[in-house]
């Protein structure tokens, strides 16, 4: 039985903001199904009494002194931008047109 359908892959690709071609969707659906079924084995031993670990080193609240430091020059940052104008990133419209 398949655990992850083509429609599901399309939905998740939308969440991940990745355009996929129909051929990519077909292939990924098959591959992801095999992978998900394999990795799902982890649930066999993940019983309620086991606490989760998110990070290998137990460290919390790492602070530095609150001292201002110089930032990178704006021109250096914008040099790598796809588009810039007046010292700012130039981005496409955010909202749909009415």
């Amino acid at each position, binding site marked *: 039985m398949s655990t*992850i359908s083509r429609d*599901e*892959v399309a939905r*998740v*690709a*939308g*969440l*991940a*903001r*990745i*355009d*996929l*071609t129909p051929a*990519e969707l077909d292939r*990924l659906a098959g*591959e*992801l199904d*095999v*992978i*998900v079924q*394999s*990795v*799902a*084995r*982890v*649930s*066999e*031993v*993940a*019983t309620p009494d*086991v*606490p*989760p*670990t*998110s*990070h*290998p*080193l137990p*460290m919390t609240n*790492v602070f*530095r002194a609150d001292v201002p430091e110089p930032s*990178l020059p704006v021109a*250096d*940052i914008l*040099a*790598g*931008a*796809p*588009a810039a104008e007046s010292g700012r*990133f130039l*981005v*496409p*419209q*955010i*909202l*749909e*047109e009415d």
Partner: protein
Amino acid sequence: MGTSTTATGATDLTRLSAAELATRLAAGEVSSVEVTQAHLERIAAVEPSVHAFLHIDDDGALATARDVDARRSAGERLHALAGVPIAVKDIVVTKDLPTTAGSKILQGWIPPYDATITTRLREAGLPILGKTNMDEFAMGSSTEHSAFGNTHNPWDLDRIPGGSGGGSAAAVAAYEAPLAIGTDTGGSIRQPGAVTGTVGVKPTYGGVSRYGLIALASSLDQAGPVTRTVLDSALLHELIGGHDPRDSTSIPEPLPPLVEAARAGAAGDLRGVRVGVVTELGGEGYQPGVRARFEESLELLRGAGAEIVEVSCPHFTYALGAYYLILPSEASSNLAKFDGMRFGLRVVPDGGDGLAATAERVMSATRGAGFGDEVKRRIILGTYALSAGYYDAYYGSAQKVRTLIQRDFAAAFEQADVLVSPTAPTTAFKLGEKLDDPLAMYLNDVATIPANLAGVPGMSVPNGLSDDGLPVGLQILAPAKADDRLYRVGAALEALLESTWGGPLLARAPELEVAR
């Protein structure tokens, strides 16, 4: 071991270890310009067949070399590795040098800053020869997922150099560089080391700064040395390691003495050292030649006085599953920054569908065009594992397995000072052989992944040739912050093996065809 000479009778500087080069540089027998030039010439000669580099910086490397030579002449005290050239994996950002992480989405990007590793290399005066090839965003075990072509294994050009750091390993194995930087999220330093006959070390998580590494999975990523000898790895590890205030996950303690441990280990005395053989990392699924070399290495360790004990880590069989949930989940979040807005590629949809090119559509089009197959696969897998309704079953369960694996390690290190296993289940496979079977590709990392999940350090040491004549590696694992144990045992094994072989394993690699 004999020193190679060229046709003119001069020492071939590219065949020397970093430690040997450092000694000659310090004694004034050679200049950094000569050493760097020799490596640049070697790169020019073998790159047409190996393709370990994505970018070569002749001018920058020689400028650093000239500067180091001038400072040495002026009597300045320099770092031990000053003047020894190095190759850097293309996932480490380098100011004014292209950095792509093997992805089209970053093609042509020039970082505006240096990673802490880069800063330390520059401050110590190591000429940076160039940036090495890798699987896109370090996702892969063969370097075939690079957007910029395959790297070829110097032992057999039809085979993979491992991955994701295949470029760094191949560059070192092909004598294009004595040292390289790698990163290891699930084995990307150690597995390429095993299949190219080189040494690779994944330090304790937090032992080397991650500031300026393009993040794959932040709770797993760790940078480390790629070299031809264990001592060279120790020298490089001490240079790049230690606390960095710019990385909040950096361990705020000094490193244990690594060079000292490597020098002590090379004497070959392992009395009092308990070496644990992990039952779950061997047997079925491991090539007979890999298993045979492993058994022989165990005998050498035993002969040097080590006590060999069998240990069981029952949850390691779940490590691969946990890893391929945790890594894609963290990657799906880390790679969200590639949105076509602030840097890198921007693809504007053609508008043929009558829809406005909004930021959201530009982002989707950019990522659809800029990411390769494996990156798409893992981002979608990670997004799925983190999505509502699946989070507990997948990501939540994987985090619990991580706890169980840490407990397995803790119990094993009660019985043993270090753990050992084969580094990879097979020797280098043919280019293309596993490209259409992602799950088969993932199995290459089955022995290396547990260390990343637990944050413990690991090393791969070349320990012979399999029946097919290709190199295999032995993995050594130590408790967190006890990286010195890797160097003691690794250097001992290296010395014992080389005395049985009569020289380094790489001396048996075929000579590469040289372009003229």
